[in-house]
């Protein structure tokens, strides 16, 4: 009688797929002022439609200052909108951190930083009760990285220093 075992396997498979989808979760946003939905991620691009304030959008990706979004209209539109004209709705956890994905991560031995249980906050009252801890400063010193190491680390990630023009610096 293997039926219950297969059922369990099927349930686990469904849960796993849900978790995989959650990993690729897309964000929802709300438009904060009337703004054009552009064909491309460029201020000079042609507008598809004008989005109204408070309209909800689904955010797929970001390219520099632009979100690629899909509207919630009767006829769905997809295009680019300035990220500063949108506010995210209820994003408080890292992707894949919710529900099933978090549950499965323990099964998969994924040591992602999802649990802060038992770690305390840091508020004004805590600060008021504090006293100097010089031993922790010594520990902090032990983590210090030299400039040469940081340069090697940057190089390994493909990071390079850039010079910015005057026009790129706001007052």
């Amino acid at each position, binding site marked *: 009688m293997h039926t219950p075992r297969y059922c369990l396997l099927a349930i686990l498979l469904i849960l796993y797929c849900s978790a995989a989808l959650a990993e690729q979760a897309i964000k929802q946003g709300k438009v904060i002022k009337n703004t054009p939905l552009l064909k491309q991620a460029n201020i000079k691009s042609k507008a598809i439609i004008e989005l109204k304030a408070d309209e909800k959008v689904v955010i797929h990706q970001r390219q520099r200052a632009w979100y690629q979004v899909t509207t919630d209209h009767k006829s769905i539109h997809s295009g680019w909108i300035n990220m500063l004209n949108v506010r995210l709705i209820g994003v*408080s956890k890292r992707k894949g951190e919710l529900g099933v994905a978090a549950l499965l991560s323990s099964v998969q031995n994924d040591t992602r930083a999802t649990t802060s249980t038992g770690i305390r906050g840091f508020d004004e009252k805590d600060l008021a009760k*504090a006293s100097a801890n010089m031993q922790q400063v010594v520990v902090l010193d032990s983590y210090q990285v030299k400039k040469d190491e*940081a340069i090697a680390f940057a190089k390994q990630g493909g990071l390079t220093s850039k*010079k910015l023009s005057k026009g790129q610096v706001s007052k």
Partner: protein
Amino acid sequence: MKWIIKQFTLLLLALSLFACISTGLKIGNFDVGKLVDQGVKVWDANHIDQKQEVQFGKNMSAVLLGTRELYPNKNINQYVNQVGMWLAANSSRPDLPWRFGVINSSSINAFAAPGGYVFITLGMLEKLESEAQLAAVLAHEIIHVTQKHYLKALKNSSMRGAITETLFMSAQAYQNNTGASANDQQYRAWAKKITLATQDIYSKGLDKEDEYQADKQGMLLLAKSGYDAYALIDNLQLLASIAADDASLALLYKTHPSANQRLEAVSQQADQLSNVNGLSLVNRYKKRTKILISP
């Protein structure tokens, strides 16, 4: 003639006292250093050299770490130091002895202290999705250090009258300055002064304009370091999406303008960087932060 002699004597006395204060000398049993410490000479921004600035930052950091200790994992702390040091190397003060640390707290916040001390909470790290976002948090704090915002805050603080050279001394130097024996009572007196000043600064926060400047110049520092500058806006979007009454944000919201105000304030800088590409390094961040729960 008598009047002239009297005035000359007074002038000589005043000059002698000034010389003693400047050099930290003692006259018999009269400890000028102690007099200085008791508030005769209050803090003056123009007289603080880099050594004193770093010592003050160290003292402030000791109080921060007395509130919550560092997250006990060398790898994650060193990763934050690598990112931070790369940014610092591209900042206007690359030669400060920069140190970065992860504070073991679920609150969402980051702190800086003068002289190159920068901290991010574990709660904040957990919310981020890329190395560029981590760099954005650190870049904002680095600007507070390079622009000496905390020293400015001290100057404007209501505690200004109580701020003395103590803040810029190590416990050892304080003990040497206040008497021959380095006893526990003297250490406690030093620690109390440091603690009070630090609590005052971190509870009140910095000037709003300083926060806006840290955001704008933070974006520039990200761009100069090769990171995606818009990651800073990602962070502000993230903060704006968390309920204002969320306990994990209590101190951050008390000491900073709202995330929405900050988003409005960075818009001009965001437009001006529209042609600058940068890296997000999502995968490296995920890889390096996987170790967070296995110290």
